[in-house]
């Protein structure tokens, strides 16, 4: 194509243009002073940095326009460090730009491809080496070597087995049992139905086993339950799920069925629960059915009733695993 059509020619590297500092020695001196000033400013900033570290109290606050009240120790320590570094850089660059020679240099690229003679030599050496090792002929060695190296490569993986236990049934169980009282989080106070007004919400956990005074985060990660009170006529549930509520009070696992964030955001007006992580929205009146967002399953509902002292308790454990999905969830 290009031999018929004559393309525009390359005029070559443009002529070198001299800078002010190349022509005028006064300009060069000025540039040198500017570079020196920049380096000196850096030195002064380091002094500020050291001064701030030792002599500005960490409790002092000062007002800076546009920024508001700032911690003086932190601010001047940081500004001192920042400018001590910045001015060195600015000085070095200014020095290079104005005073160091800026004539463009042309270097030649070299072809990467090795000369044919070298390539042939390489092939010859490699082939001779392989033949000397006898790999080509001695297939028994080759195969057994493969087996040995392959196996030893796999062995470190077994060392990792004790990184953790296997899940077993743990992902499918929580601390909730029949008769577990719902207690406030925090505070650990048991709850009566009359404690909750219509439209109210309570963060709850199962009461701790006697003798324990401390909950682990592992338990909270599965046990957290949200208690909501509506008017009983507002429910849109089948008979079974309705029997899991108590006088308009309904309980759901607080752990999102999508990816495990705490779903605690209850909109009293719409009766929806919103998970702030990925905006999955659950309809409380329909047993936390998903009405928007990426969650695929409703929040598990905890069946509740009252015990003989009038406190709210679980009727039974959850009927399904709580939290995010996993392969064997329904098994």
């Amino acid at each position: 194509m290009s031999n018929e059509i004559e393309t525009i020619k390359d005029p070559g590297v443009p002529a070198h243009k001299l800078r002010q500092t190349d022509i005028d020695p006064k300009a060069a001196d000025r540039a040198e002073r500017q570079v020196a000033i920049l380096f000196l400013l850096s030195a002064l900033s380091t002094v500020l940095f050291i001064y701030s570290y030792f002599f500005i109290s960490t409790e002092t606050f000062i007002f800076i326009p546009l920024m508001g009240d700032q911690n003086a120790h932190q601010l001047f320590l940081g500004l001192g460090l920042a400018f001590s570094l910045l001015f060195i850089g600015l000085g070095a660059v200014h020095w290079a730009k104005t005073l160091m020679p800026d004539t463009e240099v042309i270097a030649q690229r070299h072809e990467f491809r090795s000369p044919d003679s070298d390539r042939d030599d390489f092939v010859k050496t490699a082939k001779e080496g392989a033949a000397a090792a006898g790999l080509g002929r001695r297939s028994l060695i080759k195969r057994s070597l493969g087996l040995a190296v392959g196996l030893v490569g796999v062995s470190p993986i077994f060392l990792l087995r004790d990184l953790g236990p296997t899940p077993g049934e743990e992902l499918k169980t929580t601390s909730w049992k029949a008769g577990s009282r719902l207690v406030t989080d925090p505070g650990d106070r048991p709850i009566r139905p009359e404690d909750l007004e219509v439209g109210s919400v309570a963060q709850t956990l199962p009461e701790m086993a006697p003798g324990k005074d401390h909950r682990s985060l592992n338990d909270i990660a599965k046990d957290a339950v949200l208690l909501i009170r509506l008017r009983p006529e507002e429910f849109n549930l089948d008979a079974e799920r309705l029997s899991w509520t108590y006088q308009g009070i309904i309980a759901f696992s607080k752990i999102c069925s999508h990816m495990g964030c705490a779903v605690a955001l209850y909109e009293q007006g719409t009766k929806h629960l919103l998970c702030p992580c990925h905006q999955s929205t659950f309809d409380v009146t329909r047993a936390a059915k998903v009405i928007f967002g990426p969650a695929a399953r409703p929040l598990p509902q905890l069946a509740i009733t009252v015990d003989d002292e009038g406190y709210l308790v679980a009727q039974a454990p959850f009927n399904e695993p709580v939290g995010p999905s996993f392969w064997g969830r329904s098994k």
Partner: protein
Amino acid sequence: MSARERIAGNVANYVDERTGAAAWMKKNLQKVFPDHWSFMLGEIALYSFVILLLSGTFLTFWFDPSMREVVYEGSYEPLKGLEMSAAYASALDISFEVRGGLLMRQIHHWSALIFMAAIVVHLLRVFFTGAFRKPREFNWILGIGLLTLGIVEGFLGYSLPDDLLSGTGIRIAEAILQAIPLVGSYLSYFLFGGVFPGEAFIPRIYTIHILLLPGIFLALITVHLMLVWYQKHTQYPGPGRTEKNVVGYPLMPIYMAKAGGFFFIVFGVTALLGAVASINPIWLYGPYTPGQISAGSQPDWYMGWLDGLVRMAPPIEPVIFGYTLSLNILIPGLIIPGILFTGMALYPFIEQWITGDKREHHLLDRPRNAPNRTALGAMALTFMMIALINGGNDIIATNFDLSINQIMWFSRIGIIVLPPIAFVVTKRLCLSLQRADRELVLHGRETGRLVMMPSGEFVEVHEPISPEKAWLLTQHEQSAPLELEENDARGVRRPGLLKSKLRKRFAVAHAEQVAKPTVADLKEIEHH
């Protein structure tokens, strides 16, 4: 010879007698580097890495990577007496008890954000100028590797303080892991040492964050730089610049001063951010507990696109023969990112397959001269931007009085519809720019001066452009699309016809250009 010269000479002699350094020093001190600001983007990333190493080492002297529960006794009143992990408490101590601790924490975190941003703009520069072409394909793959590892390293890094926000992020990461078919819950149990959150996670990611990944980074960055050094940097086209030369400045003293100076500048700007802008205020988030959550929970920006994809995913989770397949998590969380990053890594080879161009390239493309590639890049960017914006949809909703539901629907539809539109628009833009270049070469620059001809006609004076500019606008190669015969010499249909038909389709689309002007065209104009 001055005293200074004598000492320098002795040192040089000492080293050379033991290493033979003088020979390669001489050669490399004169090495020529082309000069353009867009070549410094990778440097920003490199220097940020050094800053991360330095500031990170400082932090390790005080950080306690343990999930053991302690009661906070430090000076920050609103958290006094609360139970928290030792990791969180030590991060609070670094912030409030160690002088310069909060500054270093902030420099470290700002530096990480700048590191990732610099990698992305560097990647965009390399992509849009075609610098990934032979012989630099492997370096491109290394770069994609560094990008991926950077995302992981950053995530692990900000999860170390075990605060409410990052702990939520870990919960979400665990859910992605758990959703993997067959082995998900096992992988999760192995990583966390049991059920979530457990006590093993922070200490384990600490090792990964300060030892394993930095080691891998050091190795990859070294190879990445060595390749640039050995293969020599690419250069923008222009007068005097050819595929066979490098026009620029020598390492010593110019580049040492400029590149060395730039390191201090990057460090200085990062430290400035650390001094004046608060980042990751863990004392406001509170310690992590699975029962709490904050409105507006997001990961750091470089993972925002992942969050956005997960948010907009439709709720598809079939149960097949009793087994749960969480496509609503796997598709946005693993499959789409996997396809994206694999596609990115393989792109040099894909483009080579389409163009059939197996030659070396050391001169960069002006993006307009590779309209298909540029449009593809714009398409990918649009995709990522929509995902990123959706990741912040609740913050956007609160601040701009919008509805998260509307933003979600915009993103769901937009992410499918907008990227192809971006492709078409960008490609047409590139072709228009090529046309404009052609006009400039043939007719010169419009000066805006009007002159009246003797015949009464008004004409705008056009100034011919300089030969350097004319060269710049016409030096690019324009090849015809790859020719692929349907039948071979004996009239037998080639095997793999569908693949090569696809290839030909892509090749034709890829090669769409506005023909650049030639000397003949110029001569024709002169006759007007």
